[in-house]
């Protein structure tokens, strides 16, 4: 019921209010109200006597509501409510009228206005108060456990304090080890303690504390729940090593061939893909860095682990390398010779100089295996009853046969040729791919009882028979029919396939001294030309576009040219005559669908001598017989669905017969998919859609790209090349292959070559390990995620792109005794010890235009410290310190500065540097001395930039999960900068250390302890009181539209599926009112902020003066 006996207490707040607002008049005006029983004013309502006045008056005048007109409710609402409670009045019958911030201060120069505004505010507050309900705090149970996010010094301190107080604490750290930024530092100001010495005991304590559960290499994935009852889902990133088994022996790192820039050393050093970040790491367990599928593996239609076999080859472990190839492909020698290597086209190294010779590495290890008598063995995984016929022993057919046999099916391969290999055998000339290689690599299939039926042509007569005999059939019949041009005299020409087939089957074709013109620009044109050359011809390739548009492999074109094949571009055959060919001249037009420029006929002709014309204008599948049997054929190609299945149920197809003439690797890839789906089909499982393409946006570690040219392979002597069909490419030598492999930029991180698995005695390494998740229930959360510093690259004018211009954290690593240079600063560019170093303060800090507006607080001190340490390590190094102001506001800090100046001989120059540039081998620092008013230039060998600090880059994501606010620089926002620096607006979530704002170690540790104390206070109670000012739903009015649900930042609202109305989870609700503002019918409202109350208050406030 509306209140009738309200009391008003106007506070003077010293002169803050009474100096402007006429408090007596306020009291007098309000006293006129019928519903006000008592009104008074007092100098400090928040003082003991002030509170007593309220208590006494409540009792004396039997007040049923109280308005205190004073300052912001964030300051004294609780004080006043407690006073009322002591007097027996429900505390929620007390409201604050903020006449200080709203009336007195803004109208300081106009006391009349201030007084009238104050009266109005009080009136409005009374209107609001009148309908207030008496409320009682909610009680929420508490989970007596805590979570600390961040394993830096602040987080560790918080965790240890909590754990020591008997509270079970979960620590989540995203890096593999505890330590944070502090463990990277060389020494600490102003005491020059070594952080390794003072921090490692703490790290070990955290690692071994019975009350601490440590999750490193982990991230908070999801946070649910509320104050006292949080549910946290934690992602444990896969280290690919079972840490329960890892002994930290380091054998894996010794053999790991993959070197990456060290993230712990901020790229100042390198490390192996499997690593422990630093010697004192806790836990002392190895972690394998895997970034994902590298571009080479992704680009390979068969998804061979290219980075893997290259990595093993780099280590000289060719046995391992061939094993990596064999994991996905038994035909290493074939692939190593004739693959069109999409892997190399995708190789990140290509953007720097030339791609790594991936194919030749594979070729080398394949040959190595032959020489060293290591054979591929096809292991049949459990014999199955069902049988499959494969028509065609080419690229697609062979791999399908292999895969299906491996799965246990009985496989028979039919081919009309007398040899195994299809186009590999008869379409690719022997000087590129000798038949012995094919036979050698097919032998394991034969050994595993794959049956080959050669000289057997499948056609409309016998196909049905085969189809009945086997459970499934794969058509991999390739493209053995010749395309025709339809020009006069075409019958006089020879087809490329015919020529190649003869060469392959050892027949002789006499072309000695004859002029041979090969028409076409694809691989078969080049093959035919080089074959004709070997038969003694004088060969010219005539192509209708230019060299740039030739679809043949570029290396092969070069090889052909070396051997003496001539080229004629922009001509198209018009007629073949005896001994001559008539060619039409072409010109290039716009680009066509394939991205190549189209040839356009010019109408001009020329004649060319040609004893023999070889047409290499494309091949087609010969699928006419299949069409007759009811298999869908389109544009001469066998039509399949997305599972490689033809229109006949148990008939699948793959390879060139499906795609049109393409290359070995694509034929093989489709063949593999056909085999996979045949197996699914035979087992009655759901088939998988063919997915050949895969993308990878990894681009490797550019800093690893030391200058190294791509190695060329050894070739046969030119005379033999021109006249014989001996294999002309001899591959890499053993030294070359290792050097070539070293050019790899390691895009994927760990290459999964498996060398480490071999040496791990405790069998801890599992390269297939996946990320996993754990759930923890906690009552409080402390966020201590720390800070980052801006990279030097952000400041090109200060030379940030030069290797010897570092940021301070990178320089710390160079100063660290256990760092990459053992504490002696050396230039990253050449390893020389510098003669002079310049330090630049305030890089990006105090610079709202180009960086951040604030002072980064620690830079002055650490720069002075670094300057001192340089002098300490090498007194002969000159140090120039360019500063604007030295801010040394800590215990012992100013004294520290003076020591640097007086004892160590550091040169301090007051003025900001504007430019740093390279002059010869050194760096010219262009600065100013604002004190003498002179421009100062100095040449140094290294520059250290004290770049601005920002919040940890991942903190925004975390803050969103925790629903706590942050600013644009990534600092978490505290509830009150002065009085609640550790609290956040979300109950039970605290912040500590540099996550709030950059701070030094002293302050971080203090805050860690402070936040722990806050959490302890919270967790010490069995149950928590919660403010009852929460949203409530009137189910009679609620239409269940869900607008409120989508607005709730706390996830407190759900829609009851049965009653179809919104429901509020009181434990989660924070009473912010966003739901209420968005409800069209006001069905959801915050208690004591109901629509009538607000409207009444607004009515008063909006009245005209």
């Amino acid at each position, binding site marked *: 019921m509306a209140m009738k006996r309200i009391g008003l207490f106007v506070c003077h707040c010293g002169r803050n209010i009474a100096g402007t607002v006429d408090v007596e008049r306020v009291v007098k005006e309000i006293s006129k109200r019928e519903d006000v029983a008592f009104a008074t004013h007092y100098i400090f309502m928040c003082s003991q006597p002030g509170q007593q006045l309220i208590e006494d008056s409540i009792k004396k005048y039997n007040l049923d509501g109280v308005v205190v007109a004073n300052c912001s409710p964030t300051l004294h609402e609780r004080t006043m409510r407690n006073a009322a409670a002591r007097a027996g009045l429900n505390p929620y019958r007390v409201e604050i009228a903020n006449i200080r911030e709203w009336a007195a201060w803004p109208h300081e120069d106009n006391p009349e206005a201030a007084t009238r505004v104050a009266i109005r505010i009080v009136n409005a507050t009374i209107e609001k108060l009148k309908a207030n309900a008496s409320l009682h705090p909610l009680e929420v149970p508490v989970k007596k456990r805590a979570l600390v996010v961040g394993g830096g010094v602040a987080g560790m301190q918080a965790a240890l304090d909590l754990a020591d107080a008997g509270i079970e604490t979960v620590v989540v750290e995203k890096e593999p080890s505890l330590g944070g930024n502090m463990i990277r530092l060389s020494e600490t100001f102003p005491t020059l303690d070594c952080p390794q010495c003072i921090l490692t005991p703490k790290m070990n304590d955290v690692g071994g504390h019975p009350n601490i559960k440590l999750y490193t290499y982990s991230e908070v994935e999801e946070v649910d729940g509320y104050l006292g009852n949080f549910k946290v889902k934690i992602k444990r990133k896969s280290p690919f090593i079972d840490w329960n088994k890892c002994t930290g022996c380091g054998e894996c790192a010794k053999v790991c061939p993959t070197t990456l820039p060290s993230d712990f050393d901020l790229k100042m050093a390198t490390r192996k893909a499997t690593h422990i970040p630093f010697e004192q790491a806790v836990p002392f367990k190895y972690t394998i860095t895997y970034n994902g599928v590298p571009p080479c593996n992704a680009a390979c239609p068969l998804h061979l682990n290219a980075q893997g076999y290259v990595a093993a080859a780099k280590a000289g472990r060719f046995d391992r390398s061939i094993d990596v190839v064999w994991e996905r492909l038994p035909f290493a020698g074939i692939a190593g010779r004739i693959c069109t290597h999409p892997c190399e086209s995708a190789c990140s190294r290509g953007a720097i100089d030339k791609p790594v010779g991936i194919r030749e590495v594979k070729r080398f290890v394949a040959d190595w295996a032959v020489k060293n008598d290591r054979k591929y063995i096809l292991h049949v995984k459990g014999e199955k009853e069902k049988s499959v016929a494969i028509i065609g022993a080419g690229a697609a057919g062979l791999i399908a046969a292999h895969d299906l046999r491996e799965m246990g099916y009985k496989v028979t391969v039919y081919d009309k040729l007398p040899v195994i290999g299809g186009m590999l055998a008869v379409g690719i000339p022997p000087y590129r791919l000798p038949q012995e290689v094919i036979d050698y690599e097919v032998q394991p299939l034969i050994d595993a009882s794959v049956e080959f039926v050669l000289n057997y042509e499948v056609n409309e007569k016998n196909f049905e028979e085969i189809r009945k005999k086997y459970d499934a059939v794969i058509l991999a019949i390739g493209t053995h029919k010749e395309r025709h041009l339809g020009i006069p005299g075409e019958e006089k020409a020879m087809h490329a396939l015919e020529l190649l087939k003869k060469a392959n089957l050892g027949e002789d074709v006499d072309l000695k001294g004859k002029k041979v013109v090969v028409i076409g620009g694809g691989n078969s044109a080049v093959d035919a030309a080089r074959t004709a050359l070997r038969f003694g011809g004088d060969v010219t390739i005539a192509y209708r576009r230019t060299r740039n548009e030739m679809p043949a492999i570029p290396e092969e074109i070069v090889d052909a040219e070396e051997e003496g094949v001539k080229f004629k571009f922009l001509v198209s055959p018009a007629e073949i005559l005896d001994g001559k060919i008539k060619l039409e001249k072409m010109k290039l037009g716009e680009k066509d669908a394939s991205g190549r420029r189209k040839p356009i006929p010019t109408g001009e002709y020329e004649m060319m001598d040609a004893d023999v014309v070889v047409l290499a204008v494309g091949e087609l599948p010969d699928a006419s017989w299949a069409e007759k049997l009811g298999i869908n054929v389109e544009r001469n190609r066998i039509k399949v669905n997305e599972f490689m299945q033809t229109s006949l149920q148990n008939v699948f197809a793959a390879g060139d017969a499906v795609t049109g003439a393409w290359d070995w690797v694509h034929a093989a890839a489709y063949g593999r998919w056909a085999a996979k789906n045949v197996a699914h089909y035979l087992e009655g499982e759901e088939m998988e859609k063919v997915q050949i393409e895969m993308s990878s946006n990894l681009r490797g570690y550019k800093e690893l790209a030391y200058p190294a040219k791509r190695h060329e392979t050894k070739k046969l002597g030119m005379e033999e090349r021109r006249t014989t069909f001996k294999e002309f490419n001899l591959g890499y030598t053993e030294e070359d292959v290792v050097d070539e492999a070293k050019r790899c930029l390691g895009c994927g991180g760990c290459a999964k070559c498996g060398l480490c698995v071999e040496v791990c005695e405790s069998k801890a390494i599992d390269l297939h390990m996946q990320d996993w998740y754990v759930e923890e229930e906690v009552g409080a959360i402390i966020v201590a995620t720390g800070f980052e510093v801006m990279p030097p690259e952000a*400041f*090109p*004018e200060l030379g940030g*792109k030069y290797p010897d211009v570092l940021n301070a954290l990178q320089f710390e690593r160079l100063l660290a005794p256990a760092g990459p240079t053992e504490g002696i600063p050396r230039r990253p560019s050449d390893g020389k010890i510098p003669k002079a170093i310049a330090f630049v303060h305030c890089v990006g800090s105090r610079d709202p235009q180009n960086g951040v507006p604030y002072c980064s607080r620690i830079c002055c001190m650490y720069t002075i410290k670094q300057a001192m340490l340089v002098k300490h390590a090498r007194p002969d190094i000159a140090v120039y310190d360019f500063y604007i102001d030295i801010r040394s506001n800590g215990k012992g800090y100013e004294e520290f500065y003076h020591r640097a100046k007086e004892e160590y001989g550091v040169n301090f120059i007051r003025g900001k540097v504007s*430019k740093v*540039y*390279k*002059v*010869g081998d050194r760096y010219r620092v262009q600065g100013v001395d604002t004190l003498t008013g002179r421009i100062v230039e100095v040449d140094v060998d290294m520059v250290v930039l004290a770049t601005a600090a920002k919040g940890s880059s991942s903190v925004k994501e975390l803050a969103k999960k925790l629903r706590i606010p942050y600013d644009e620089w990534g600092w978490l926002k505290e509830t009150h900068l002065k009085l609640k620096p550790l609290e956040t607006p979300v109950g039970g979530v605290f912040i500590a250390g540099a996550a709030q704002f950059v701070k030094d170690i002293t302050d971080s540790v203090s805050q860690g302890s402070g936040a722990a104390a806050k959490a302890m206070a919270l967790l010490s109670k069995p149950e928590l009181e919660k403010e009852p000012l929460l949203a409530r739903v009137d189910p009679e009015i609620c239409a269940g539209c869900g607008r409120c649900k989508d607005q709730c930042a706390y996830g407190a609202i759900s829609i009851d599926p049965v009653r179809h109305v919104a429901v509020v989870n009181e434990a989660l609700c924070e009473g912010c009112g966003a739901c209420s503002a968005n409800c069209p019918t006001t069905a959801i409202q915050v208690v004591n902020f109901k629509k009538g109350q607000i409207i009444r208050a607004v009515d008063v406030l909006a009245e005209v003066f």
Partner: protein
Amino acid sequence: MGKKVMFYPGCTLKGVAKNLEDSTVESARVLGYDLVELPGWTCCGAVYGLAQDSVKFTIANVRNLIKAQNFGKEIGDNRLLAVCSMCYNNLKRAHIDVMKNRDKLKTLDLFMDEEANYEGNINVMHYLQFLKNDVGMDKVAEMVKKPLKGLKVAPYYGCLLLRPDEVAIDDREDPHILEELFEILGAEVVDYPLKNECCGSYHTVDKKEIVGERTYKLVSVAKGMGADVIATSCPLCFFNLDKRQEIAKQKHSEFEHMPIVYFTQLMAIAFGLTSQDVLHFDKHYISPEEVLQKWL
């Protein structure tokens, strides 16, 4: 006939910088564009007024923009190309200034009652931006006939292409657009740290010695980095770096001369346009002929 695009040459190109004008127009022609001179253009004013209450520096430029507006409708294109850095800077700033500050535009309209009002849709572009964004560097690469292989070029932007921020054609501290162009032309690019430093500008009129000192520093650093030529786009930078070497040499006997060229001249040469009608080497104080002999 190529596609027509409006071109604002500016006064300097008509006289002492004929080498810039002709190499620009001819190189564009190779790329399939016809740079049509804006009819009736007037002086850009060379420097832009910095006083808040000054409108006089804006008038001439807005007049030019209005002319472009009219002519642009005729040829159906709203791009106005400038190649002289000063012209680009002034036209662009005037455009931005009046678009931000409509009151100023209204005041200007009062000064120019004989003309249509400026509607604000002229796209003022520097020739380099045009090459990069509209023509495409691919297209430029396609037209290279004589790659400048072995020529070491120090790209020099000066001030007006990069500052103030609102008119910058690239990152003001570490621009790369010239570098990209020269690499495509086949030249070897020198990482020239002073590429965005001032040449001394208009002080060349009354304080030659200062400009001589600037030239000394800019040229000798480029020389020290192994450059054969410095390439620029601004006729004033060109004059200062070229002609004022005389003073630099007088003051510093160890100073070594270096030829200065316009980036468009290098483009023309790479495109195979080596006629003196295009290159006008007679306009250079230090002749680049010897250095460029290989490609001429």
